[in-house]
């Protein structure tokens, strides 16, 4: 990240090549359309690069920051296109079966992935759907209630119960920093 603040070409190239597969992977997983996913991925990488000087490493990892930018742009793209997002089960399923990651990518997410995978496997499917719709697609409880055809209270219960299970599964054992979003470069 040091080179990001300097804005030199070589650093830009290194930054893009480090994150482009993660960014495009999230965009295509959420949107499902390669053209729209490319638009989102390009815009996300450009925004991340241009805002790098104000990135605060104390607030989280670079990967999470870049992916959050990507997620927000993908949500906007889905809303603008009035498109139906990828089914939450498919999104989770894709993540669970992915084995096509390079060593670099495995290093980036080495701590998070197996833990999240096993934690999600233990969450009931209806809670998992609600979690993914909220965390990935930015749906409110009311929107989830509508799309899942369930009462608002039920949607909230599913979100909260699912989140509690996930948080407990990813929690540090004795006050040590959690690994759910950490373990990568800052």
């Amino acid at each position, binding site marked *: 990240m040091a*080179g990001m603040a300097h804005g*030199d*070409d*070589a650093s*830009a*190239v*290194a930054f*893009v*090549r480090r994150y*482009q*597969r*993660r960014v*495009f*992977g*999230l965009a*295509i*997983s*959420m949107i499902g359309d390669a053209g729209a996913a*490319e638009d989102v991925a*390009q815009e996300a*990488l*450009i925004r991340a*690069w241009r805002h790098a000087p104000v990135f605060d490493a104390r607030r*989280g990892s670079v990967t*999470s920051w870049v*992916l*959050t930018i990507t*997620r927000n742009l993908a949500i906007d793209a889905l809303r603008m296109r009035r498109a139906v997002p990828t089914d939450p089960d498919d*999104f989770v399923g*894709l993540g*669970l079966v*992915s084995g096509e*990651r*390079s060593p670099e990518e495995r290093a980036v*997410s080495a701590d*998070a*992935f197996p*833990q*999240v995978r096993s934690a999600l496997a233990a969450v009931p499917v209806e809670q998992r759907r609600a*979690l*993914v719709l*909220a*965390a*990935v697609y*930015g749906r*409110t*409880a009311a929107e*989830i209630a509508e799309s899942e055809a369930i009462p608002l209270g039920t949607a*909230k219960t599913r*979100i*909260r119960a699912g*989140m509690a299970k*996930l*948080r407990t599964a*990813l*929690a540090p054992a004795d006050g040590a920093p*959690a690994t*759910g*979003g*950490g373990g990568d470069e800052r």
Partner: protein
Amino acid sequence: MTGTPSCEEMRGELAELALGTLTGRERAAVLAHLANCPRCPAELEQLSLAADALVRLAPPAEPPVGFEVRLFDRLGVAPLAAPARRSVAPARLLLAAAAALVAVALAFGAGWVASPGVGTPPRGAGGDFAGRLASARLVGHGPADGEVLVYSADPSWMFMTVADAGRSTEVTCELTTRSGRTVRVGTFWLSRGGYGAWGTALPVPGDQVRSARVVAPDGTVLASAVLRS
């Protein structure tokens, strides 16, 4: 407020705050609680990490052809400033480049620096590579990495790439032979960001090379590799 029922009751709200699903009024109520609670901010951080982890589940995917070109154009990054893409450049491409370049080197009898589209394969470089070629990944003692190829022929030659060494400087390539002798085979420049590609004919038989090192002027070993056949 630590451990009080109000904190326990706030757990669900915190989960939704971490996920960003609260309405404005609900959000305001939770933020008011957080401002006066010594315990819940830490809980919110853990919940936020869990929410982030969900987003990270998406598997990486290769962007469409031309993605980089279009992106670098929008970023105003000159294509020539973009070094070879290590993650998708198989060893055979590196080898092909090396084979093309070695002809130039042999013609001029000295080290050479990579440039595209020149040369033909050298003597002994066509067809029978098996058993003559040793390769290894350069492992950085810092962030640097790269690759080394050593080809045993008459003369033997080597080619190496360096990436992400973090500085623009002249570097020295040193080899260690199987007998333990250190041989300084030449110098080359790393461009801005620490990228470079370089090759030379060797003063020792290629099959006697055990390891290679890239050394900065101050003696720092930027990267090293142990050759395998």
